[in-house]
């Protein structure tokens, strides 16, 4: 989970005051997490990088509308997620779920067959998550891939934490069914 920064408010005030260094600091602190979330969503390293860049472009434009009710990263994740959805909704630019690019894994020296097996399993899971209904998909990806706390998701979705937990429970049920069907 991304822990809220103690000086988040200070940075935001500085950025709104035109402080470029503060904006760069926000980028440094958040871009890895935004990229990771987008990579998990799209399964493509280059595409995730492009979407990350686009996310920040939109963020600068929309900074005046950020009311500070949620954490900055939660707000950024929402923009990233919307950017991803906009991308996959463009018919000709649809990301293929069947032939993903092999991700650049952290160097932990696994066996070749292990890497292949993990990658396949991850890809199946990603495909299943992306097939979930919109509200469940956002909740699952925001919680597990975006690292947002249930409370933060509830805040951004304007529902209770209980509702978010129910969504997660329902999503697990659907994911299990989907994965079981694929295994058969």
């Amino acid at each position: 989970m991304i822990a809220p920064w103690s000086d988040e408010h200070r940075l935001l005030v500085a950025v709104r005051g035109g402080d470029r260094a503060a904006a760069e600091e926000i980028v440094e602190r958040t871009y890895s997490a935004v990229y990771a979330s987008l990579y998990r969503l799209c399964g493509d390293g280059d595409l995730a990088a492009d979407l990350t860049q686009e996310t920040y472009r939109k963020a600068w434009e929309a900074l005046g509308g950020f009311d500070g009710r949620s954490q900055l990263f939660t707000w950024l994740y929402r923009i990233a997620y919307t950017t991803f959805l906009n991308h996959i909704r463009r018919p000709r630019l649809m990301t293929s779920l069947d032939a993903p690019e092999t991700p650049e894994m952290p160097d932990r020296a696994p066996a070749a067959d292990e890497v292949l097996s993990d990658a396949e399993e991850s890809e199946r899971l990603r495909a299943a998550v992306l097939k979930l209904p919109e509200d469940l998909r956002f909740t699952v990806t925001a919680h597990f891939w975006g690292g947002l706390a249930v409370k933060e998701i509830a805040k951004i979705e304007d529902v209770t934490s209980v509702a978010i937990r129910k969504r997660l429970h329902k999503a697990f049920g659907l994911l299990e069914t989907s994965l079981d069907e694929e295994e058969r």
Partner: protein
Amino acid sequence: MTANRRAELQRKLAMAPVPKPPAGLADRIKSDIPGELMVDADKERRRLRQAVSFNIRVAASIILLVSSVYLALNLLSRRFGPMEMAAKSDNAAIEHDTATAAAPSYPVTAMAREMPPAPPTLPASAKVDAPKLEKRNAVIVAQARPEPLALRDAETAAESGNASTKEESVTARDRLAAPAAAPMIQSDSMPARQVLDVEIAAAPFDATKYIVRVPLDAQINFDDDAVAAGRPVAPGLYEIIMRPGLRDVIAVVHDGDRTRTIRRSELRTWNDASPRTKAAALEAALAAGVDPELVAAKAKAAGLEGFAAH
């Protein structure tokens, strides 16, 4: 779903491979940071105000559009409603013209002999049967050919041999008391400026007859199911003899594109007739040769003191 299975799914989701961001991504993002990051509060406020005013303009436009359409439809329905009726009535008049041309014309006095002395009690709440109006067999169109009222009265009196016409008139008037309470003639869903000034009331000297006052240039088509005979006695004034029965529609009056249907429920007694109608009827009687003293007495009784003195 078992707890184990759920935990496994959670683990897989949480442990999804996290790749390193490509080198230089942070610099690319930083290079996109706009030169003027400063958020101008006034500018934002202005933008918000513009958005709100735009929404208000859109809402006002929609309201204006809906109102205009409603108004236009309302006006069109008012304009074409009476015209359609007029067209139907005109068709009926054409049919009638053909019918009257072929049918033998007989004098009012002869028809009066065939009629009972007074019309039955008139139902104030009689309903109009519009389709029947269209299907009426023939309509009596009043001809602009005045007939001396005195002659007619004399003939009627001679034939009936009854000198107690006045008493009968009183009785008939009493019977007409109920319909006299009917409201003033109102045209269906017409604005006041379009209402034709039409009135039907008992004749002053013969309770078996009625007088119909219409605008001077108006054309009147009597329904022969309700009216046995009719004739003009003065410009814009007709004298009719009613048939017994419950036929509600008595006549249809046309004046330009305006149409008015006169119904049985609008019948008034002589006493309840408007001063204008009373004066017109008495003047016609005078012109037709009725004893001026009788006319003056009637006028005095009707409250037309000026007319009586004249």
